[in-house]
Structures are given as structure tokens and as C-alpha cells.
């Protein structure tokens, strides 16, 4: 259940980048992105997802529900 960053809301402040225990966050095209295959939601590392806790704009680091596993079965 990886997180994603909503690009239109990202201020590109970089606060999340060094906090990610999986080094899954990097800057791309003026905003930051989370590499879905690396994200573990910080489970096993911290009590709360670090990107969510540090992000200055609420609801910008969110669970990526567009992934196939979240889609209703056909």
C-alpha cells in the first residue's frame, strides 16, 4: 500500500526526501515523487509515515488508490 505525492499540491520543499527510510523519494520535474515499489508506509521503521507527518500541505502524501489492487474486481 504505497503512498504517492499529488504533484499539483507539492510545494517542492523537499522536507519528505531525507526522512524516507526506504530512500523512495526523489525530485522529478519540479515536484517530488515516491517510487511505489520501495514504499513500505514506514511500517517497521516509524509509528507514522514520515512523508505524511512532515508534509506542509495536508492530503498531499496519500495512499495511491489507483493501483490495480484497489480497483473493484471486474
Amino acid at each position, binding site marked *: 500500500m504505497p503512498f504517492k505525492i499529488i504533484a499539483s499540491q507539492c*510545494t*517542492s*520543499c*523537499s*522536507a519528505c526526501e*531525507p*526522512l524516507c527510510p526506504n530512500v523512495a523519494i526523489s525530485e522529478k520535474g519540479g515536484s517530488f515523487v515516491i517510487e511505489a515499489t520501495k514504499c513500505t508506509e514506514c511500517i517497521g521503521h*516509524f*509509528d*507514522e509515515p*514520515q512523508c505524511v*507527518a*512532515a508534509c*506542509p*500541505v495536508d492530503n498531499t502524501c496519500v495512499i495511491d488508490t489507483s493501483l490495480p489492487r484497489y480497483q473493484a474486481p471486474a
Partner: protein
Amino acid sequence: MSAMVGSGGYAKAAPDNGTMMQSAAEHKGCRTAAKTAQAGCGSRTSQGDLPSEIWEKVKKHPCYSEEAHHHYARMHVAVAPACNIQCNYCNRKYDCANESRPGVVSEKLTPEQAVRKVLVVATAIPQMTVLGIAGPGDALANPAKTFKTFELVAKAAPDIKLCLSTNGLALPDHIDTIVRSRIDHVTITINAIDPEIGAKIYPWIFFSHKRYTGIDAARILTDRQLQGLEMLSERGILCKVNSVMIPHINDQHLVEVNKAVKARGAFLHNIMPLISAPEHGTVFGLNGQRGPSAQELKTLQDACEGKMNMMRHCRQCRADAVGLIGEDRSAEFSTDQIMKMGVKYDLATRKAYQDRVEDERAVSVVALQQELTQFAAETSAIKVLVAVATKGAGLINEHFGHAKEFQVYELSTSGAKFIGHRRVDVYCQDGYGEEDRLSTIIRGIHDCHAVFVAKIGGCPKSNLIKAGIEPVDQYAHEFIEKSTIVWFRSYLDKVKSGDVQHEERGDAAIRQGALISAA
């Protein structure tokens, strides 16, 4: 000394070693009666009662010395975009080249780009003496970028003073690095020492991998800020404390903050008005929280003065500001520009230029002292405020229609005391004056008896007179303090002879919106 003994509950916490910190805390009564020769305290040209080692640190720092800010420039490099707390007066999304307020920046820089920019600016503006890192987030929430920048600049431009600004949350973790990096000055923004009040200003903090909210957040932040201030004072690093004055939230409380930071060795306290407008998109802007009026701000600053040095010349500048404090030349030094501009950083040239500036300063002080001796036998309870249009160098050298701000001086038989500035929209655009802007300017200097300018047109002149503000253009290109005192003496004479009835002026508005014209 007495400062610490008298601090009650804080005396225990005040460090007792470090003579520099003691001396920083001891001298008070800054900018009091110039004629009693106490015009020191980091606010005048003369060293006054400042210990030499502190004077050396502040005499060319435009933020730490009111007098220096007429002559020396500073620059900020925006290498620190991340922040570790949220403040209700801050919205980091808003970015506009035409707006000048903290937290706002047009582009962020890498440490390498920042050094290039410092060298370009040092070449173009030889009186630029201070490099600060003040965001646009928090300098210490980006420690790698911040300290890398300082390291590179110290190597490339060793005569430039290094300075950083922080909310204090991460400060205790970085004290040794700050000392090692030869950072002379640290500014900590402390808006409250009571967590109940802090909770109304800070919705959350991010600390040791967790987000804290409410009173818990405010308590951690306050503890870390005061701890960091003590640690820096112990190590002899000059600390300025910034506080944002938020009416009905922390305005009364800032007197307590002032005592607490003084007890911990802060050198200077800078109480700034809240900047708050709905279009900024901040919590305070959106919920209608107003900023203070000019007189409310002055009353609070006056109440804290005498206890410690107050900074009144802060322009609440951008995290990428460049130039004298009253101006912002950041637009001239965009990343594209700095890559094209030449670098001729030369210590000897810079020193020669700054020596000339020092000569200028000395002349202005002599002129003032001569004028003040005329007041030696005179005392009067009358105090008036006057506004001055200036481009710097301590001279009345700006046209009324071109002024982006007016500097405000309080005149009394003790002398001319700088008490602040009023930012305005430039009246004259393309050679024509705008009537709307004139009324805004008049509201901004409404508490002043006179406005000193190098030149002024007939129309604004008559409107100013109608508003009860005397336009004075006979001291064009002369020293501010000397000229205003000469004017004040003749004003007192006219009051004495009955030609003029002295009346108190009203309040004035502090401008809240973005600068409409590019600075």
C-alpha cells in the same frame, strides 16, 4: 549580572560563564538620550557602551545595527526549502516576485549555485557584508544544504559574515556545527513561551520522526528554542530573537517573552507586526486575524526597550532578499542572471570601498553631535514623529514619488531616534501620481508631523498639508538626523512663540498587502 539576578525563575537557567554573553545582556537603555553620550548598543555609529568584541561583530551587520543598515547590505540565499513546523501566519505555496515577506522566494538554490550568487552579489554590491540563510523553510531543517553553503562561502569569500535564522526546534542539535562553521549571528523566532499561547500560533511540529499538535507541540518547541538560545549564549554567539506581534493572541505576552530571552542572553529583540491578508492564504489571513497598527507596535516596542535592545528597522524580508535592508534587488540576481554575470571578488577592493563607507558614517555622526550640542540646555516634553524618504547612506535623498518606504524618526530634545519604517506603494508611476496611492501613503504616515524628502510635486504637497503633514524639502541630500533635529528646533521655537499649536497626531496603518510594483 543584574539582568540575570533580576530574572527570577530564569536566573537558574541563565548560563554563568561566557563574559561576552554577560556583557551582551548587561548594556541596556539603547538609543537613549544621545546627549548623555549613551548612544551605543548596536544602534549607533559610535561604539558607545558596547564591548569591543561585540562591536566588531555588529558594526557592519545591517540587521544587528540600526545605524549600519543605512550603509551596509545583506543577502539571503534560498537553500533551505524544508520546514519542520507549521505557523498560522505562513503559507509556503504562495510565491510571487512582487511580494516581499518571510517564507516567500522565487527559486531555490543548491549550495553551489548559492556560492556563485554570493560572489556575483559581492562583486556588484561591495557593501554587502552579511550572508544569511533564512529559509524559505527553516535553515536547520535543511542542515546538510545550510552548512554546506556556509562552508563553501567561508572558503570563497572569507570577509562575509555568516548568519542564520531558525524557528529553534532543531537548534540544540546543531550548536557545535554552528560554532565550527564560524557563524557569528543566529536569529531565533520565538512568538510565545507559554504553550497555551503557542498552540494558537503553531498547529503542528515535526520532531523526532513524529508530528505533534496542540499544546504538546508548542511545549516542545518552546523548550527547544530557549535551550538553544542558552547554548548559543554560553558559546558567545550573538542571538537575535524575532517575535511576530499578533493582536489578542500574543501581544501582551511578548513582554514576558522579552524578559525570558533577555535572561538567556539574547542580544537584540525584534518585534515585528503580523503580516496578514486573505490573499496570502494563511490561517490567520483567512480567518480575519488582523495585524497591529503602527502605534500598537511602537507601544509594545517601547515597553520592552530599556530592558534590552530593540530592533526596529526590520523589513521582514524575503528568504532571497538582496541589497540594503530598505531595498530588495533580488530580481536582479536570478539564477539565469548570476550565471551570466561576472565575478571579480577582490578583498582589497571590498575593503577600500567599505573604508569609504566608514568615513561617510563618521561624518554623519560628527554632524549629528554638533547639532545635539545646541540642545544641551533645553528640555521639552514634546515628541514628534517625522517620516523620511531615503535611499540610504543616512541622507534625505529620495523623491516623495519614488519612495518605496518612509523611515520614521521620533524627535525630542534627546535627539532623533529611529523607530521604524512604513512600506508604501510608489506614488509616482511613469511620471504620473496616483491619487489612490497618495491616500494610502498618507494613512501609512498619518502619525507623523512632517515628511522629509529630496523633492516633491505640487499636488501631493498640498494634499499632505491638508492632511496635517508638513512636506519638508529644504534639506535635500543632507543628513537625516542632523536635518530633522534642525527642523525640530525651529518647530519648538514656533510652539514657544505661539505660531504653531502643538497637537498629537493619530495612529497609522501598517501596510499588509503584497508590493504592487516590483521592488
